[in-house]
């Protein structure tokens, strides 16, 4: 049972983003301002201070680490700087151009 690639990634793949706080490198895709996919790896998971703090707090219990606010800021910044292209906006440009 091999899992296939997400058809949406064929249109627009993930792009690397460096967190301004801990320098963790994650891969990001945004189809709109409000939609975000974040792919972490082991190195990034170990580097993220907010995640580590959250894990220490829950300690085997149930607890939810929804997101890292500093990483979110870094992603927003990467979008503003054009490092991450929002798929919806790119599509609009394609249609206009």
């Amino acid at each position, binding site marked *: 049972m091999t*899992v*296939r690639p997400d058809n949406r990634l064929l249109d627009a793949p993930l792009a690397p983003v460096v967190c301004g706080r801990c320098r963790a490198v994650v891969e990001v895709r945004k189809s709109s301002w409000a939609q975000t996919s974040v792919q972490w790896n082991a190195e990034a998971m170990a580097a993220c201070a907010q995640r580590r703090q959250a894990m220490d707090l829950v300690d085997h219990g149930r607890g939810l680490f929804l997101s890292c606010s500093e990483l979110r800021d870094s992603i927003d910044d990467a979008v503003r700087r054009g490092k991450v292209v929002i798929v919806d906006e790119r599509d609009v440009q394609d249609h206009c151009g």
Partner: protein
Amino acid sequence: MAAISDSGVRQIEAGATPTRFARGWHCLGLTRDLGDGKPHTINAFGMRLVVFRSGDGKLNVLDGYCRHLGGDLSQGQVKGNEIACPFHDWRWGGDGKCKSIPYSRRVPKLARTKAWPTLEQDGMLFVWNDPEGNPPPESVTIPRIEGATSDGWTDWHWYTTVVHTNCREIIDNVVDMAHFFYIHGSMPTYFKNIFEGHVATQYMTSGSRADLPVPEGAPKLLGTTSDASYWGPSFMIDDLVYHYEHEDQQTILLNCHYPIDANSFVLQYGIIVKKSENLPEDLAMQTAIALGDFVKLGFEQDVTIWKNKTRIDNPLLCEEDGPVYQLRRWYEQFYVDVADVTPEMVDRFEFEIDVTRPREAWQQQVEENIARRAAGTGTPG
């Protein structure tokens, strides 16, 4: 493997259902039912199991068929610390060893059957399934549910049913925001998935559906907050809060299953409700039962879809769908040997849906349904 044919038609592709069963803890049911001192038959993992509480108080799970001449141990009797086969009275201990054969001077060598690692916790019995035969690692244990053993909460309201499809269908629900509107009458307002290690989480908030009938006498529901995680391949704990006009109601909803075979599974859910000043003993239990009826309806709605849908390995997704492929990548870790678990199956992945467009579309749909009902021209769509 091209999903598009020459004519431009997208083809549905689906491989065979997996031939092995997921590695992980599976809840078999409540100890108050399974631990009554009688043997119980459980069909799981393509096998027949016997569950029995032995004289020493321990709940045991063994392969159901006697290694002597194949008698069904679950039709036998508990005698002391052993289960006695109904065919020739061979006695099997919870460790899987044959302890005695009353009509024989000695037990033959290698008289051992499969015994499953068990966990009794929070009123439930779990078994560890591992095709490789390794013991359960501490890091994947089922977390405790505080309310389950507390006087401040009700007892479990439990429900069990058999569903005739492969259990991947129910796993897919973790990422399927839109079906909560179309199938379950919810109004999702926020939706995010997180997969990390052996845990897959769905965080969702919902508003209320003004177009759907409210049960008579029920308080006005403003919405719900749901923080639901699968701990391994089959056991989901949902911290589910109902926001009513006058107060919040804390509940825990379990959604768990175990496979019978590749094409059927036993679906179970359990509900406990936190008691409060407005919701003392009996009223809290009544609430748990009422919520249970509501959840039962929800699962029946799912089952109707599953019965009629086809298995699909290459779903065609729009941007407002959840991460189906990444969820299946996470789920795959339970179907391969531990040595073959790859980083991408367990690395953290987050996916937050943009709910702007769905909310607009669904609000409009709700208004149309209300208008249609007011005009008396048909049933809501």
